[in-house]
Every structure is written in structure tokens, then in C-alpha cells.
């Protein structure tokens, strides 16, 4: 039987039971829609993470003073006293893949301005820090290398600190007290948001010269970490090994001794988060595709009912010359049309959902053409797979018995 005639017969059978056909397709509609919307959500999250990592700088490396084995006692990171400013200077001097380096040390303190006070993190570093982190100032200026040399009492504050201490006044030029010492606020950082890696509020920070923190707050000589930017994303792996070489040399670490520092590469971190969000996307798509399979079972169920109901019709068709192939393809095409129709409406509903989700929940979405394609092919495959058994059942009917069927 020619294809067009078969399709016309199938469409007529579908139109005969409009409500039933719609309900049958609903499973596929929901399945395809869910797959598209879920993958859009997953990919949206993935893109957001990628963007944040790119904003952080995928060429950024973090050098931390690391664990150390002292007579069997292993200390956590940041607890060794071996990373000093000379190391930073050596990295700057000896590592060609490195573009910028900023020493880093930190503490926390109560900050007082007028009647307000706020407890926050203090990052002691060098002027390059803001460049490495691609973190522009909202107003005011950054501190200078001269401020570092003189251990000046100057501070650049994050947006959260500004909100809490200066709800109404312009902070630039004001003096705050930290550990009873007066600090002049010279700049305000732009909003950075919460970090991808840690989830903490990056804007809840005060940045000042590392020397000021070392001498006036911590009273120490060592550093907790260094922020490094490589020449490029690709160069970050070369930068990592160069830094490791320089530091092992300077700290006289021989194999198989543990390093007393560690280097974390943002490219690695980016890959890690990429992997995590990919797994999440796949998981969402997998859960959504279960509803596609359930939809397919719905189609099979209805097709089986339909074959039984139309036993007599099948008998008539066979008596006047339909072959088994004719009958089988008629029912198969019917179930494929049902599922493909569901797929088409499913795409629409998936797109509508992808449009509504960010507006209602604020979650980012990114509609994937590949997900749409796969969902549609999968829905047609579901139609063939779950339509085959009922179609075969119809084709194998005995025409005499089918004709006698009431």
C-alpha cells in the first residue's frame, strides 16, 4: 500500500478518537517537553558556571602554603610558615609563563565606622590582585606598591561591607577602625557575587596591602597564598609546573618528600565544574526520558485496545486483500504519528517551559538544539518500538475470526 494512503488511513483513525489520541500523546508531550526543559536547565547552569569561571579568569592559579609533615603530624593548608615574600618575588622573576603575581595573607576583624560595625574577612595582598581576579573598582582607587612598601593604613572595601557600614554615606575618604587602628577607605569594589567554588559572598571583604596585615594585624612574616595569572589559559599548566619547580627549589624539597605548598589551576577547576554540571544535565535528561518511556507504554496500551476494537475492520481489510505487511504498517504508522505528534507538541511545551522557568525562578536556561533533535528522534523511536507489538498482533489476526468478531 502506498505510504500516503496509509498515512491518510492512520490520520483518520487518530481523528476518530480525538480525546483518546490527545491523552495518548500526552505522555510523549510531557516526556519530550521535560527532556527539553531539563536539558535547558542543566545547560543553563553549565553556562553560568563557565561564565563565572571565565570571569574569575580561567588563567588564574592559586598557590597555597600547604600541608606539612612535622614528625608525623600533618598540618592543613595555610599552616606552614614557609611561603614568604621572597618566594613571590622569585615566581615573578623566574617563571616566564606567569603574567602577574600577588602575595596574599588574610585575617578577620571587626570593622567600626561611627555607630556601625561589621565583622569581615581581610585580604592582605598587592595591587596586582585586582587585575588577576579581573575585579574592577566601582569608585575610588586601588592602593599602590608604595602603600605596600610603607604598610599604609589604606583599605579597599567590598560591596557587602559598603552596604553594612555606609548605608547612606560615600565611603571613599572615610576612616574606619580595624583592631583600633584607623584605616582610610580609598576604593570600593564592584559587585562580584558569590563564588562558584565556595559559594561564599566574595563581596564581604576588605582588601589592603599584605604588609599592613603582616605587620599591624597578624605580626607574622609568612604568607598564606599567592594569586597568579598565567600568560594565557593554555599557559596555565606551564605556569603551574614552573611555579612548582621554583618553590621546590627554594624550599629544598626532594622527592619523595611532600610539597609544603600546592598549586591549584583554575583550568582544572573549570574542568571539574564542567564535569559536574554535565553529570547533572545527563541526570536530568535521564529522569525526564523515563517519562518518555512511560508515554511509550501509554501508546502501546492504547494501540492494543485499538487493535481489539478494530478487529472487525482488520478482518474486512484482510478479506479484501490487505497483506499482513499492509495491516502492520497501518498500525505502526498510526503509533508513530501519535508519538511524533506528541513530540512536536512536546517541543513547543519544552520551549515554553524553557521560556517561563527563568522568569519564574530566575534560573538560567540554555535551549539545546541537540536535545530537541534527540528528544524528537527518541519519541519517534518510542512510537516504533511500542507500536510494533500491537501492529504485529493486528497483522497476525486470522481474517475469518476477525470478520466474525462482534
Amino acid at each position, binding site marked *: 500500500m502506498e505510504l500516503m*494512503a496509509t498515512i491518510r488511513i492512520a490520520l*483518520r483513525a487518530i481523528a476518530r478518537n480525538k480525546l483518546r489520541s490527545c491523552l495518548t500523546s500526552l505522555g510523549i508531550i510531557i516526556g519530550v517537553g521535560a527532556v527539553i526543559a531539563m536539558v535547558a536547565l542543566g545547560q543553563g547552569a553549565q553556562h553560568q558556571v563557565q561564565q563565572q569561571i571565565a570571569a574569575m579568569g580561567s588563567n588564574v592559579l592559586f598557590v597555597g602554603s600547604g600541608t606539612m609533615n612535622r614528625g608525623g603530624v600533618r598540618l592543613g593548608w595555610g599552616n606552614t610558615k614557609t611561603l614568604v615574600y621572597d618566594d613571590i618575588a622569585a615566581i615573578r622573576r623566574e617563571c616566564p609563563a606567569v603574567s602577574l603575581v600577588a602575595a596574599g595573607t588574610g585575617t578577620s576583624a571587626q570593622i567600626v565606622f561611627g555607630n556601625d560595625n561589621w565583622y569581615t574577612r581581610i585580604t592582605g595582598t598587592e595591587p596586582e590582585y585586582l587585575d588577576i581576579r579581573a575585579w574592577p573598582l566601582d569608585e575610588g582607587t586601588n592602593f599602590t606598591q608604595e602603600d605596600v612598601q610603607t604598610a599604609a593604613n589604606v583599605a579597599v572595601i567590598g560591596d557587602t561591607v559598603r552596604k553594612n557600614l555606609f548605608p547612606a554615606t560615600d565611603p571613599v575618604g572615610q576612616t574606619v577602625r580595624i583592631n583600633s587602628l584607623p584605616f582610610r577607605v580609598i576604593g570600593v569594589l564592584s559587585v562580584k557575587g558569590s563564588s562558584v567554588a565556595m559559594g561564599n559572598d566574595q563581596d564581604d571583604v576588605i582588601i589592603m596591602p599584605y604588609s599592613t596585615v603582616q605587620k599591624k594585624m597578624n605580626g607574622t612574616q609568612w604568607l598564606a597564598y599567592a594569586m597568579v595569572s598565567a600568560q594565557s589559559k593554555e599557559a596555565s599548566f606551564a605556569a603551574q609546573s614552573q611555579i612548582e619547580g621554583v618553590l621546590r627549589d627554594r624550599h629544598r624539597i626532594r622527592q619523595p618528600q611532600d610539597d609544603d605548598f600546592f598549586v591549584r589551576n583554575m583550568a582544572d577547576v573549570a574542568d571539574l565544574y564542567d564535569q559536574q554540571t554535565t553529570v547533572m544535565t545527563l541526570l536530568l535528561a535521564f529522569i525526564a526520558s523515563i517519562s518518555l518511556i512511560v508515554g511509550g507504554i501509554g501508546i502501546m496500551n492504547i494501540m492494543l485496545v485499538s487493535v481489539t476494537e478494530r478487529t472487525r475492520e482488520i478482518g474486512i481489510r*484482510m*478479506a479484501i*486483500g490487505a497483506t*499482513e505487511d*499492509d495491516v502492520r504498517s497501518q498500525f505502526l504508522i498510526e503509533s508513530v504519528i501519535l508519538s511524533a505528534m506528541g513530540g512536536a507538541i512536546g517541543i513547543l511545551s519544552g520551549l515554553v517551559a524553557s521560556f517561563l522557568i527563568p522568569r519564574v525562578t530566575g534560573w538560567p536556561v540554555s535551549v539545546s538544539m541537540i536535545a530537541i533533535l534527540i528528544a524528537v528522534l527518541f519519541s519517534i523511536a518510542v512510537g516504533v518500538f511500542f507500536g510494533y507489538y500491537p501492529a504485529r498482533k493486528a497483522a497476525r489476526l486470522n481474517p475469518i475470526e476477525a*470478520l466474525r468478531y462482534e
Partner: protein
Amino acid sequence: MATMTSTPAVAFSEKETAVPIRVEDVHKYYELGDTRVHALRGVSVEIAHGEFVAVMGASGSGKSTFMNILGCLDGPSSGKYLLEGTDVSLLNKRELAAIRNRKIGFVFQGFNLLSRTTALENAELPAIYARISEQERISRAKEALAMVGLADRAEHFPSQLSGGQQQRVAIARALVNRPAILLADEPTGNLDSRTSVEVMEIFQKLNQERGLTIVLVTHEHDIAQFAKRSLVFRDGKIRKDEPVVNRQIASDVLRTLPALED
């Protein structure tokens, strides 16, 4: 067919003379658990081109089984059935479907039209399975409907037609692939007497004017009187095979019947 091994001249004459239906000692039995139920117990009959045969018998006499075998819906358990010289028992399911489609036209007691499908589309259906082009299909279906006097009802659905009209659509459907044999299983069983005679008039006309070979199952003696020959079945065997005496001509009978008043 036999043409493969014969010379063209012989093939031509063979084709012309091949008996439409030849049944040789056909048995049919069904296995029901341990018991074997005999439906046909050795039936032999030959039906020539242009014959109009009425098959009669009580229910259970084997006449339905006989018709199913003639219609290639069922095969004999033993014996031979030659349709236009072809041994049907040697054919596979696909070939049987093709024979039902092209060589045989079926008319059933219950009309067996597809509902919510117009008269034209119903009549067209066998031509779809014969893979005839759409244009040709429609013109043939219209022609067939005209033959049974329903040219003006082509776009009607079965539910909009009377029983007689529905049966005539079914006859048009049986004719659309221009078969040589028409098998009718109690075609008047669901019709009133006047409509029955009208249907018989169509059969007689097709038999007379087109030379269509017709085999008609009926249990009504009146209806059998319109055929040329009658076969009577009992207990799975043909008990009587004789020409119809006092054959009725439907068009004459119709003239004597009063028109039905609503």
C-alpha cells in the same frame, strides 16, 4: 501460472478455458482439544465461467467453511482447490492476499463497510491494496458505484445509507478490482424482501452482462431461485447439485412487487 512452461498459443487457450473454480475431494477438519471436528468431508465441485451458483444448507452443514476456502480465507486440510488453474494450497499468505484482492470480490451478510468512511472511499479500498494510482482508483470506484446505481451517493457515509444501499456499496467495493469471481455470503440476510430482490437484480445483471462468475450462500429458498445452479450441503458434503428450475428474473419480480410505502 502454467504459461511459464507452455507455448504462447497454448497459454492463451488455457487461460481462456481454465475453470474458475475446481474443488477436488476437499476435507476440512478442526482440532478441538482431543476431538477432531469435520466441517467438510470430501467435497468435489467444478464451477464454470459465467455460472451463478447458490450454495444452500442448514447451519453447520459446512457451507460457510466451503465459502471460506473458495475465498482463500482458509485452506483445505486435504484435497485440492484450483482457482483459475492455480493450486491455492501452494501459495503463501502474501499471494493469498493478492488473490483475495484481485481475483475475488467479497460481499458479506453484514455489509462490512468501514464506518465514518464515505461510500467512494469504501469502494476504493481494494484498489489501494492493489497499489493502483489514486486517480485510477477514484475513477474505478466511481464506475463501480455507478454500476450499482449509487453514483449520487459517493460522498455519503454508511450511517447515512439504507441497508440496501450499504450492500450495494459493498458490491461496488467487490467489483473495483474487476475480479472474475464474486463470492457472496448471505448478502440478503439483513435485508427486507424487496431490497433483497433489488440486490439479486444487480447480481443477475453482473452475471448476465459482465459474465461474472457468482457463488452465493443463502439459506433462503426464494433467493436461491435467482441463481442458475444450486448446491445443497449437508453434514459436510454436497447432497444435491442441480440446475435451478423455474429460475426467477429479479427485474420481473420487482415489477410485481408493490413499491414500499413509508
